[in-house]
């Protein structure tokens, strides 16, 4: 009987020692720096502050590898819809140093500052950048949206 207690005690002692060692290792291990992911907000003020741009997938979801359309909504800082804007789109994957696999275009003005952007395609997972050059009565400005798949 006594020997069983000795076993149990020794087992507990070893377990406690191990827990202690593990705790020391984990607590003193250098933290891997938290990579600050790109800003993926879907609504932004343009670079020179002329417009507020919002960018949303038209059907709500992003599907990798499929052609899709998104809506770009342009408002003035005061909140008025921006009409008659000329929009060009470029972009790519900064970490792979390549551009977009398609040439998306603004194909339709839907009213209330909303423009349909057609021909977007995300062929791989990762960090994508879309840059919009916007030209309207108030002037020209740019905005970059990050999409992470």
């Amino acid at each position: 009987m006594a020997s069983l207690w000795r076993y149990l005690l020794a087992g507990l002692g070893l377990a406690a020692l191990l827990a202690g060692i593990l705790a020391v290792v984990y607590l003193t291990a250098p933290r891997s720096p938290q990579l600050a992911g790109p800003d993926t907000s879907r609504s932004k003020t343009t670079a020179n502050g002329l417009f507020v741009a919002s960018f949303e997938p038209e059907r709500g979801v992003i599907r990798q590898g499929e052609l899709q359309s998104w809506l770009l909504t342009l408002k003035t800082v005061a909140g008025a819809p921006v009409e008659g804007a000329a929009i060009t789109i470029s972009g790519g994957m900064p970490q792979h140093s390549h551009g977009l696999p398609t040439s998306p275009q603004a194909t339709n003005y839907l009213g209330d500052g909303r423009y349909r952007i057609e021909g977007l395609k995300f062929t791989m997972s990762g960090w994508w950048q879309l840059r919009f050059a916007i030209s309207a009565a108030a002037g020209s400005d740019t905005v970059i949206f990050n999409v992470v798949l």
Partner: protein
Amino acid sequence: MSRMSRLLALTVMVVLAGCGKPEFSDAEKKTIASLALSALPPLKPDTTNRFADVPAAAALGSTLFFDTGMSRDGTVSCSTCHKIDRQFQDDLPQAVGVGRTNRRTMPLAGVAHDPWFFWDGRRDSLWAQALTPLENPLEQAGNRAAVAHYIKARFGERYERIFGLLPDLSNVPANASPLGTDAEKAAWNAMPDQQAEDVNRVFANIGKAIAAFERSIAPPQTRFDRFAAALATGAPPQGDDAFSAEEIQGLKLFIGKANCVTCHNGPRFTDNSFHNTGVPPIKDLPPDRGRIDAVAQVEADPFNCLGAFRDGDAGACGELRFMVKGGPELIRAYKTPSLRGAATRPPYMHAGQFLSLDEVLAHYSKAPASVEGTSEVHPLQLSDRERAALVAFLKTLAE
């Protein structure tokens, strides 16, 4: 053995069992699931070809696929290079039809899921693709007027049951095409517009029938798919479906350090896009610049999605409307091929440059500069063991 050392051994075993990490992380499991055949969506209807899912059209298409009668000398059919018992390819570095071409024959499993056809994407639909070899002087070397006459004589009744009445071809020259020999071009240019359109219509329908057949060629389940299915349910893979340690290492490299999955993604292991990966040209072949030269070709093709022979509306033409038309990235860019079945069909790359998967991996590991344009691949420094593991994994996609 003393009691103490037995106790120690027991403790070590317990600790090791507790620390044994799972084979795949959650992120890896998600990627593996995205590669499984079960993730392949059902084939979308092809609205540009209203015969795409008509069984009689597919039946005629399969007859034509194996028929040598549309070639100039009556010896070459689609199946000459797309061999049915060889994954619909021919094991040759460059395809040989009437002459020797400059490109590797592509296999056909799952081809109907592609947005672009040929290594450089110079056609934008399966039916437009099927027409091109018929008139290529190095492939079937036929011409569309001769094809129309042949169809009327040989398959007239079957054709009319599917596509409606054949046009009057009695005044159509025996041989004529805008892409043929000088004599064929002259004969084509002398034809009235209506007659040329009639011939083009018959020709387009031939492509639509062959495409309807090709839609049925689907990629088969592989050992990898069974392994992935077991991994997804958490049940241990049964018997042969279990992966060896080397195959698991290869799979982890494929979706991790080796970056293969960046382009070879999704259940067909392709992003359906074009990339310059620094694959060297072959010395005695004509200059080949890949995608950059294909853009003008697909735009000029009268059978493209925006042309007069498309069925349905232009809403299906997004790939063509929004394609990238220029830029240095298109120079020597070629389509990412599917890797399903690749292990058993060497040689590799667009002109059969590499004789084995080991040569392919040696190329990607070293990542040499492209002779023109810029390679997207960065050196990997894979060890011999890692390369062997990747090959072992790729073999599971062909078993």
